């Protein structure tokens, strides 16, 4: 098994509050790593460390190192890093433009101008995101007209269109109905072969359905990380068990 991302002793602060405490973690190539834990335990903050989106916040500070393919991410050009590590946010955020333009937006900025090539990317990404059949006839319509579930899959397609290696999902189904949720989950499982996926979710069952391994975060600390089976059958930490069985959080 190849380690895609290695996190060594990561500590994060907003102003003077520490929100991630000495975190060690490896993310393996072509796995779906599920991250569960109660609200405010630092899951989102962790994801946004991986693509350095936290750097936008002037109050954010961090220490420790994150290696991608063995290389410290701070030495990778920011645009390249973010192209290689894509992100799907909790709320589907379509840009106020057409479906087609939403998907080609990133690719165009990365220098792809050829119309044929762009159309190819659009189709390929939409197929991978299991949205192609639903929208193929109306690519020029505003993306905001799609339903919530469709928009979230559009966001996935948009991320795929810039050809990432890793995709970070931050509670991608929190605003969706069960049917859309099932579609998004199916999409994620299909993506597993080609991409490395990190899925933050507040839904323990979803983590169980989709992930190969699961990490449990609590108050900024990684309590335990194990295969999905082991963590549910014999959690080694009392707090994990409490959380999984719904005794808190």
């Amino acid at each position: 098994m190849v380690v895609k991302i290695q996190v060594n002793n990561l500590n994060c602060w907003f102003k003077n509050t520490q929100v991630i405490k000495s975190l060690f973690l490896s993310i393996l190539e072509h796995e779906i790593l599920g991250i569960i834990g109660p609200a405010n335990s630092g899951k989102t903050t962790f994801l946004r460390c991986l693509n350095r989106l936290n750097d936008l916040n002037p109050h954010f500070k961090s220490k420790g190192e994150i290696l991608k393919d063995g290389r410290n991410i701070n030495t990778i050009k920011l645009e390249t890093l973010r192209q290689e590590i894509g992100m799907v946010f909790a709320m589907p955020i379509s840009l106020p433009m057409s479906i087609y333009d939403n998907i080609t937006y990133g690719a165009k900025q990365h220098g792809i101008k050829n119309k044929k090539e762009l159309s190819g990317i659009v189709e390929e990404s939409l197929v991978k995101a299991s949205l192609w059949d639903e929208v193929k006839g109306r690519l020029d319509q505003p993306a905001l007209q799609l339903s919530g579930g469709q928009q979230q899959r559009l966001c996935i397609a948009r991320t795929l269109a810039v050809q990432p290696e890793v995709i970070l999902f931050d509670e991608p189904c929190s605003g969706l109905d069960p049917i859309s949720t099932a579609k998004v989950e199916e999409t994620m499982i299909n993506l597993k072969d080609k991409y490395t996926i990190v899925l933050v979710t507040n839904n323990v069952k979803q983590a169980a359905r989709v992930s190969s391994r699961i990490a449990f975060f609590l108050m900024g600390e990684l309590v335990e990380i194990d295969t999905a089976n082991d963590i549910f059958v014999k959690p080694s930490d009392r707090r994990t068990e409490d959380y999984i069985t719904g005794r808190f959080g």
Partner: protein
Amino acid sequence: MSPRITQKIAFSLLFLVSLVVFIPVLFIIGILVSKGAAALTWEFIFSMPKDGMRGGGILPAIVGTLLIVLCSISIALPVGILAAVYLNEYAKDNLLTRIIQLSIVNLAGVPSIIYGLFGLAFFVIMLNLGVSVIAGALTLAIMELPSIITTTRNSLNNVPASFREVSLSLGVSRWQTIRRVVLPNALPGIMTGAILSIARIAGETAPILFTAAAFYVPHLPHSLSEQVMALPYHLYVISTQIPNMPEKITYGTALILVLLVLILSFTVIILRIFFRKRYKW
């Protein structure tokens, strides 16, 4: 007196006071329309002045004002937008930013006649542009900078932060994010701000007094390095410097100036309604 009665009296008083503010505005508009409407003919708008400006039309003043205003907005708009981009997208919360903000507040409060003096000393004399359209336009451009920066900044601020995050998370650079996502979505607000500043500077007199405006020019402007007649200055001239001016012409000039400003302002209101319907997120 019971509190209820005091309240009644107080409210009525406040209402009357508001009318005191309200009525003169209507009076001004009313008198301009009733006395100036007769002058609004094609001939008045599209012909040159005659008989020492006591007859004929005011075409050169209209053209001059439009020319100055268009020049100045095309200078001030890009600069103002970029300045707002800096403040809203790049600037950190530090001393420099605070000094910039203080400067903008002060620039907004500098009296218009001081801009006139500055324009004279800097553009007309030092840069040797002479009394000309371009010198006046540059002077007005500095003057409208604060309002363009402020309105642009507000509309940039109204673009959801999530749009920026999405774009950045796709590996798009900061400037391209601003260029492709932030600015297009802020455009309605920027446009309305721009038109509003056009309306404001179209009526300014003091800043162009020594930088662009001419008492009388017998032809339409040929280039930007010429002096031109301008509506507000023309109104000043014909209402104070020329004896026996026919009333119709002064009122007509004033009415056209006000109409120009009001049409621009109404465009803004309509644009605002239009965009409010189209853009909701």
